[in-house]
């Protein structure tokens, strides 16, 4: 199959990173097309008309959207590094943790950064509980996937870099080595993995996005792109 691969993405986005790291783990060639989320391209809107979001993977002429859907597609279409396990029960288990990350951890982490007062305290308590649960899943292994990166590691990527940057910008210190030694160790292993290193954004790029927009993001509780 010689169809071209294009990935519409944005380096600051962990969702975009998920798709990119999956492609790099499989060793497939692709073209990265940078999207300016303040001025979305006609191509992005054509290929993701319903949600108008990145990442979008274009395989030949066929668009696939939503980061986890893209990662599972890449795993199923390309040989090489297995991202999901083969066993149905282990696959279900990986998908469970992926959902836990996207439905509990990520929203709680986000809101703990962009709220204050009692609301923030409540989100911080939720984050602490969720991080402890997630850390427990590591069970002393190098990665959630075992010896090598798997679906859960990819879905948890924001804990390896983005959360650290965001909490620094807002003045929190939730995810730290004292409280979450195994999770922080995992973060370092993840950042240093070959396929990840090649597509991880510089810390400064993420700081450069959040710092100048701090007040507006705080007001909206959502990313602001312009």
């Amino acid at each position, binding site marked *: 199959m010689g169809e071209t691969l294009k990935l519409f993405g944005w380096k600051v986005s962990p969702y975009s990173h998920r798709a990119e790291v999956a492609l790099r783990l499989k060793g497939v060639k692709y073209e990265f097309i940078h999207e300016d989320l303040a001025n979305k391209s006609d191509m992005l809107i054509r290929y993701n008309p319903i949600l108008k979001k990145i990442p979008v993977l274009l*395989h030949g002429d066929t668009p696939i959207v*939503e980061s986890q*859907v893209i990662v*599972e597609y890449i795993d199923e279409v390309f040989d090489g590094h297995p991202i999901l396990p083969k066993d*149905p*029960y282990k*696959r279900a288990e990986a*998908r*469970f943790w992926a959902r836990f990350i996207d439905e509990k951890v990520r929203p709680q982490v986000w809101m703990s950064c962009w709220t204050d007062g009692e609301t923030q305290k409540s989100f911080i308590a939720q984050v602490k509980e969720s991080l402890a649960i997630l850390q427990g899943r590591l069970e002393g292994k190098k990665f959630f996937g075992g010896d090598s990166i798997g679906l859960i590691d990819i879905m948890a990527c924001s804990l390896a870099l983005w959360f650290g940057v965001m909490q620094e910008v807002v003045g929190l210190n939730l995810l730290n080595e004292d409280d979450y030694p195994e999770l922080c160790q995992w973060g370092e292993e993840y950042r240093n993995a070959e396929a990840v290193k090649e597509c991880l954004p510089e810390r400064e790029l993420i700081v450069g996005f959040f710092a100048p927009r701090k007040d507006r993001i705080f007001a909206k509780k959502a990313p602001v792109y312009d």
Partner: protein
Amino acid sequence: MAETVKLLGTKGSPYSHRAEVALRLKEVNFEFLHEDLAHKSDMLLRYNPIHKKIPVLVHEEKSIVESLIVVEYVHEAFNGYAILPSDPYERAMARFWARYIDEKVIPAFWMSCWTDGEMQKGFIGQAKEALTILESQLKGKKFFGGDSIGFVDLAAGMVAFWFGILQEVAGISLLNEEDYPVLCRWADDYCSVEAVKESLLDRKLLVAHFASKKEKIFATKAPVYD
């Protein structure tokens, strides 16, 4: 011989329904264990300690949770009926639309039922847009899965059966034949499928259940079990 497959669920839950229909499509022998969600069983808490929710599939003493994850597991672990398509792109599309139903269609419809004033108008607008987009995916097919029901049809089970009940109790008419003729026709066809019929509760019972809890649900915007 004790059944090796157990499903912890409730007949009133559209999420439990997804898991049950999947098992019936695969003709798996299973034991349905009714949960009283106001008094969760020790078994439920043991098999789903993190979320404490139904459905829970127990297969050879291992538990699988989260309705769509259960459906994918049933598709992969048991032979027979193909719930997901065999083509990776079609599978990615099925996963996308199931996600769209869970993240856009259901929340907007639910909140349309249980809010009022300007807030309700806002949710109704979102629900109408989401239903229009969903309906367009039927594109002349009998089911989202084609000639027979598949992953997206199961994900949309709530639309087919529960939406009519909820809107009747709430006193609104969102999903109606005039505005959504194709979706309403699909709903009738879906509810007529043998595996679906076997898992649905009597409509009158469900209407009575929601009607009796109407004020409490309106106050909390969440399902009420006691």
